[in-house]
């Protein structure tokens, strides 16, 4: 925020990318009646969720994960491992990028718009959104952190931080479009299908609200696994000190 002109410029860039993403689905659904049963009016809701999770991934996680991969390569991790605090927490919260604020606004707008055109107005829907976002953030964080943690086994993986944000694209589409095996993976091992389409299914009355609790439980389990994975990976870390 120290450079207002820079902030405005990059916010404009982020806003334009968001518009292009929505335009993509609009044009796709001008040519197709639906995508595996999802019309444009309905698909707006999962897109809103994925957009908000995407803002978290790019705005909060990306710079931290990029720096983590670089620290592993340069041997600078010692500095954080020797501090009297949880190293996973320290390494995940070093930077915050406010340029992604337009993505938060666009994501919120998509959810609001999706609610109005689908006549979703019950107060409980706000609670569903809140739990879904917390769970989505938990799953996105865990998967992203674990993917970058694998760089501790390699000498150099400078593009590892790009892997998760790119795979998040899977969450924009209903899992029904994918082959059976991939669909199974996206519902269990890499639960991208849960991030946007599960809460949308619940909000549209296509799935039971109880599934939201399993979503939250899955997120908590994934966060815990990421913690175990980090501790396990640290045993393989070595550096020439800094």
């Amino acid at each position, binding site marked *: 925020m120290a450079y207002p002109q820079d902030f405005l410029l*990059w916010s404009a860039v982020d806003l*334009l990318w968001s518009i292009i993403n929505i335009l993509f689905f609009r044009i*796709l659904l001008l040519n*197709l009646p639906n995508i595996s049963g999802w019309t444009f009016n309905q698909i707006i809701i999962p897109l809103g969720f994925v957009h908000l999770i995407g803002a978290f991934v790019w705005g909060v996680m990306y710079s931290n994960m990029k720096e983590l991969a670089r620290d592993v390569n340069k041997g600078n991790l010692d500095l954080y491992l020797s501090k009297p605090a949880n190293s996973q927490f320290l390494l995940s919260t070093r930077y915050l990028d406010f340029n992604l604020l337009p993505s938060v606004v666009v994501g919120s707008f998509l959810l609001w718009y999706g609610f109005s055109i689908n006549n979703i107005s019950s107060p409980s829907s706000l609670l569903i959104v809140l739990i879904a976002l917390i769970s989505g953030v938990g799953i996105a964080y865990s998967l992203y952190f674990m993917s970058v943690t694998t760089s501790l086994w390699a000498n*150099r993986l400078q593009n590892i931080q790009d892997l998760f944000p790119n795979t998040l694209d899977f969450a924009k589409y209903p899992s029904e479009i994918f082959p059976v095996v991939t669909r199974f993976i996206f519902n269990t091992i890499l639960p991208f299908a849960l991030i946007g389409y599960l809460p949308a299914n619940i909000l549209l009355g296509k799935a039971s609200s109880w599934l939201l609790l399993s979503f939250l439980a899955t997120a908590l389990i994934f966060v815990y696994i990421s913690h175990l994975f980090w501790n396990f990976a640290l045993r393989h870390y070595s550096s020439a000190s800094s």
Partner: protein
Amino acid sequence: MKKYLTIAKAEWLDALQNPGEVFLWIILESIPVFIMGSLWIANKNNLSHLSVSPGQLVTYYFVVLMTSRIIGFYFDEHAQVEIRDGTFSKHLLKPFSFPLYLISNNLGGKIFHFFSLYIPVTLLLLITFRSQIILPSPYNTLFFAISLILAYFISFAISALTATAAFFWEQSLSLIHAHWMLVSTAGGYMLPLFLYPEWLQSIFNFLPFKYLYYIPAAIFTNKLNFQEAFSSLIYSLTWAISLNIMAYIFWKSGLKRYTSVGG
């Protein structure tokens, strides 16, 4: 010539050092084709009104991916930063042409990627979508090869124009994003141009971006007839020449404005 071959070789050897990163690129590069291929196959019963087969659409994305790796130049951001902070001077002191250095460097990396990236990605996608991939007719194979060469020079000129903007404008980094946005939409990277509304297609027809991805992919998938493919190549050639002349003029006038302090 020997010095440019050495530059290409150096880039090739540098790329060889990181097999793990190459493996990740294979995954990253395959994701969009896998998603779009799955999407069109899942919705194949809804395509009758578009006069296009699922095979053509799957192949379209496959060709766009390969084209993007063959014609891609990524020097613009780096060059802009160097022009702004003055470290660009080091390139001007070296005994070779900077534009030819960029092309040699790019081709060196491409040769490495041909074996390490293009062949594995091709095999991976052929295994996944083996029944869907279609092949071009004999004359379209030739036209496709020509369209790729022309697209390479258009891509170089657009990246060079984006980079040289740093000589004239402080906030030129945003132009890199404008470049990618136009390539994604008007270039046909995101969606084939025939899916866009007609008014948008007519705007895109006035821009050079469709000759980067849409035209090569449309030729490969037999979406254009002989006459359309031939005239597209003429337009592509015109854009390649005029954009490179423009880039040369901007480069020369930018160098006259360029100042830096220290060594």
